[in-house]
């Protein structure tokens, strides 16, 4: 025991990584690189380097805590292997028992948002009131201004919580759904044959 143990490395990046860890463990929502940089009083590039370091330490199967890039920021979450233990202790009201109507409404708001309740109703063919209220209560969507034009219906958009629950870095991660052009043509043809049969 001649030499004292050196538990704390003096590498400045490591020092910054520890600051980032501290900020993330206190945060209850993902922190952006910008927020981390401001809080750590360092520049964004070095924060990203530090995040890589933190990501290596807190990786799936390596640690019970996992660093993830989600909802436009960085956050700690529980490792997937620990889901069972977490499920026994914690409730997840935001995503529990999402109905088909709620999921469809959520999809419409996520893809077309900000959009109004009448917009949703027009696409789904039924009133969207209760589904919208349900999603609002869960915090998956939020009000985002009003429609211009007569009446000015309230518009809705998805929240960062939505991205977090669905594990999306951002809305741009949603899969493209524009390959349904063929569907439209097919549906039209079917409708037309039905119409012809009726008029005949």
């Amino acid at each position, binding site marked *: 025991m001649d030499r004292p143990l050196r538990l704390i490395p003096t590498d400045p990046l490591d020092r910054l990584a520890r600051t980032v860890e501290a900020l993330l463990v206190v*945060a209850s929502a993902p922190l952006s690189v910008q927020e981390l940089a401001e809080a750590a009083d360092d520049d964004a590039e070095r924060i990203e380097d530090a995040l890589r370091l933190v990501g290596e330490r807190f990786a799936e199967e390596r640690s019970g805590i996992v660093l993830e890039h989600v909802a436009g920021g960085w956050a*700690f979450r529980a490792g997937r292997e620990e889901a069972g233990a977490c499920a026994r202790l914690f409730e997840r009201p935001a*995503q529990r028992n999402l109905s088909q109507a709620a999921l469809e409404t959520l999809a419409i708001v996520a893809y077309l948002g900000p959009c109004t309740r009448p917009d949703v109703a*027009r696409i789904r*063919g039924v009133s969207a009131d209760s589904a919208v209220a349900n999603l609002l209560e869960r915090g998956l969507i939020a009000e985002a201004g009003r429609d211009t034009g007569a009446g000015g219906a309230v518009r809705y958009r998805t929240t960062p919580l939505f991205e977090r629950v669905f594990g999306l870095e951002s809305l741009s991660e949603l899969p493209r759904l524009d390959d*349904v052009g063929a*569907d*439209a043509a097919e*549906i039209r043809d079917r409708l037309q044959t039905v119409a012809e049969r009726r008029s005949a």
Partner: protein
Amino acid sequence: MSGVGSTEPPRSGGAGFAGSGAGISVRELELDLDAFEGPFDLLLALVLKEELDLRDVDLAGIVTAFLERLAEREELDLEACGEFLVLIATLLELKARALFPDETAELAELEPEEAAEELARRLAEYRRAKEAAAWLRERLSAEGDRYFRLGPAPLAPKVSTQLAPQDPEALGQALSVLAQEPPEVSLSHMALRFPPVSQFLERFRALLSRRSKFDFDAEVGELTRLEQASAFLAVLELRRAGELAIEQAAPFAPIRVSRLKLEASPAEPATPGQKTAAPPAPLAQENNDREERTAAWTVRSA
């Protein structure tokens, strides 16, 4: 929306116009809204002639105005309430229709082919929404084992510089005004001037040198209450110094003051350095003290 029959023409509200007699006149209800100012029946007329767009009219404002009018009266005018309900319900229905154009009617106006096209477009759109929903559901079950902390983010408030730049010195000056000690309140008008106790000390010593005992009450009987208090303090002081003894037969009985022989043994241990045990000596110091104290007192209260 389908519950609102589109074939039924808008109600003219004619039935609702049946006179309400001496109660509140709903039609004369004065309105002060953003889009309209005037009596209620003028608003109705303008709306029915389509000269005023109902979409711009704040119907809640009309309800509020009516309720205020209703509250002014002591009894509930049921007839007026009924009339108002009919009218406002009609207006609400008209406004709702104006805000949400009837889609079935829109489709009905189209040519069959166009209608089919439109329907196909909508169905395709809905199919897309369903696919997106299915993707979300899959995603949810795939990401279901991700647990994370939730809660409002209590981020430190950002420093906002909405105020014009301020001079810190001005703030300092403002504070220094507050930090100054307030002027002392003068008590001169309620000065309590205690006659110095020392005056009575001398007086009683002189008295006891002439007589061996005296009656306190008789001695101070002609003095004011404050002087009597001072005199009594002097007696107590002398008693403490062992120069005299005090007797009282019963509470409120006359106080008898008698001289003590001091030469034999001073009641108080002699002050060190005091060679002669002269009776007044131990008191001299105290006398001065008291005099200073009383002087200080009278000065302060002056």
